[in-house]
């Protein structure tokens, strides 16, 4: 057994905490609970959430998407801490980058381009870039001791880490130079450089997309070129930030096969990237309140009562206990299989909640469990 992980010590020291894991495992709730706890322990905290459930968002006063951190009301500030929360607005973050890095006329052109509209709102991966971008911005502001980041609900938890490289590959590729060529050179001058590749390329694209769409695309890429350069630098900077000592990763999972498999991938990936994994948080773990009574004895007792047609209430309660024990056994087995494969990773357990969290007290309770060791 690994020693219990000291989550409070992490909350007191870290500068960035990144919560990652598969979709639907309670990442956002975990991030919000930890941020609240850190704030009430006296730190100035900002929590960046991506796509919170409506009620959780309301519990933190996040009623609108305005892409700036807002103070959360109802925090115990006795120890001098504070909590700001924000929800990432992907399109707005993208628009802001365009506005900040191009002159007004050019910005208008970009914002109106049909490819930009599509890219900024639906591009698979845009959320990851924008989360990375926003994290960099918040860090640069220097207003907070600790930033807690909830990663986007990606197809794969790894997408978040891969975003900067993917962008780099895109920008360095010959592809983008080809797309730039028609807009830059105009006429036929560029043909001399890329004759073979380009004729195949434009031929295919024209046949598939049509000439007008190709022109739109080329203009769009050209207009983004300058901006993208700076964007990549910043994304790489943020990526490096994630490797610095003040950063810690939490891998969030639930005791189910798929979620644990994702978690295992992530743990292995973090170790390859030499990024610091603090602990795994295992949410929704079933526990029995009276493990001394075994599943078998409980079921046998329930059957005896049912046969005697006595106390249907007790028989039902015994069956509930047997179910609870079975669920607890199953979860414990799942947790052991993960720990067996990754013995050096500490695991913090959080019990299954009857209902979703709606308010700060609910978040405080979860934080209690997270830090109970």
């Amino acid at each position, binding site marked *: 057994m690994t020693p219990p992980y000291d989550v409070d010590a992490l909350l007191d020291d870290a500068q960035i905490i990144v919560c990652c894991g598969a*979709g*639907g*495992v309670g990442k956002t709730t975990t991030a919000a609970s930890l941020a609240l706890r850190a704030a009430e322990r006296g730190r100035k905290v900002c929590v960046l959430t991506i796509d919170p*459930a*409506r*009620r959780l968002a309301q519990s933190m006063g996040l009623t609108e998407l305005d892409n700036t951190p807002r103070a959360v009301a109802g925090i115990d500030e006795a120890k001098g801490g504070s909590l700001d929360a924000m929800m990432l607005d992907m399109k707005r973050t993208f628009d802001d980058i365009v506005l900040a890095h191009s002159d007004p006329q050019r910005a208008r052109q970009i914002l109106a381009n*049909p*490819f930009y509209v*599509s*890219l900024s709102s*639906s591009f*698979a991966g845009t959320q990851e870039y924008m989360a990375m971008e926003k994290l960099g911005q918040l860090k640069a502001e220097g207003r907070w001791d600790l930033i807690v980041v909830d990663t986007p*609900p990606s197809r794969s938890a790894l997408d978040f880490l891969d975003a900067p490289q*993917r962008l780099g*590959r*895109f920008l360095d*590729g*010959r*592809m983008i130079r*080809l797309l730039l060529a028609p807009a830059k050179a105009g006429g036929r001058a560029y043909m001399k450089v890329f004759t073979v*590749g380009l004729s*195949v*390329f434009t*031929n*295919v694209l024209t*046949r*598939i*997309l*049509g*000439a*007008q*769409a190709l022109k739109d695309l080329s203009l769009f890429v050209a207009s983004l070129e300058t901006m993208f350069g700076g964007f990549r630098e910043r994304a790489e900077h943020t990526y490096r930030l994630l490797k610095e000592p003040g950063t810690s990763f939490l891998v969030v999972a*639930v005791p*189910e*096969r798929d979620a644990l498999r994702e978690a295992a991938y992530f743990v292995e990936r973090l170790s390859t990237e030499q990024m610091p994994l603090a602990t795994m948080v295992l949410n929704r773990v079933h526990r029995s*309140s*009276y493990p001394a*009574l075994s599943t078998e*004895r409980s079921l046998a*007792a329930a059957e*005896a*009562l049912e046969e*005697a047609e*006595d*106390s*249907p*209430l*007790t*028989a*039902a*309660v*015994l069956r*509930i*206990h047997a*179910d*609870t024990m*079975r669920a607890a056994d199953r979860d414990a087995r799942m947790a052991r299989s993960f720990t067996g494969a990754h013995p050096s990773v500490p695991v913090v357990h959080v019990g299954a909640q*009857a*209902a*979703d969290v709606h308010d700060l007290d609910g978040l405080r309770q979860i934080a209690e469990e997270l830090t109970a060791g």
Partner: protein
Amino acid sequence: MDGLAGVTLHVVSGKGGTGKTTVAAALALALARQGRQVLLTEVEGRQGIAQLFDTAPLPYEERRVATGAGGGEVYALAVDPEAALLEYLEMFYNLRRAGSALKKLGAIDFATTIAPGLRDVLLSGKVMEAATRARRGGGRIYDAVVLDAPPTGRIARFLNVNSEVVGLARMGPVRQQAESVMNVLRSRQTAVHMVTLLEEMPVQETIDAVRELTKDDLPVGAVFVNMVRDPLLPTGDIEPAATGAIDRDELLRGLKRAGLDAADPMVTGLAAEATAHAGRVLLEQRERAELAMLKRPMVELPLLPDGADMAGLYELAGVLDEELAT
């Protein structure tokens, strides 16, 4: 299930963790039991189908994974965007050779990972090709295609991506292709099913997704309520148990009657578990009522105590088989 008679493309979506892959597979098995040729597809590169059927990762190739009574069969296909693009170039433009040139340029990489929505266009295009194959000829012909689709948060956007393409490409073959995909998706041939649990977030996401799909004129099919547990407490005991007002004296008497060496700690422990159970039962009742307001056919699937293994999968298929027959 009424209204699903003419459906040949079953799109199955749901929040992460609700078991949409399992339900999609069970639906495919149920259709095969009725003697149909079924293709079960996935598009997210997770190899969820292979894991479920306990086979090696699926290649980009239609493989038989199960047979049903009455000659029905289930084939499975994991759609890979890069392979779909190359196939697409060959099929529609006779450009297989251009495909390898484009690959060298990084264009395939661009198209499948970076380009706006193109990935989804390719994935949905391939699924559509399989679903409408009978009319084109070439390849195995299916009576039904079941798609293990992206989760609720992305489903409307995924299905609607082709109409976005129509907006981007004002003319040319891509536009025609996108238009024909949208026509099938919006027809009665297609049904978009939602998988949910009786929990707050999955139900809320289901309601949101149904609203979005309806707004985009995409046909919503059934709501599959997964992992349903039987309420164990007698009806009259649920409310008191939920508030912690369970009859402790009766419980103590019953435990002793059952031959257990019961004392206060046991009563307290078991009562706490009963309270949690009752709270969940009440929550489930509220969530069920919320879902009923969608006025879609609702199918309840039991919780599989041992998780979604093959035996469980066939159990769910049996439930769905009966539902389809009514």
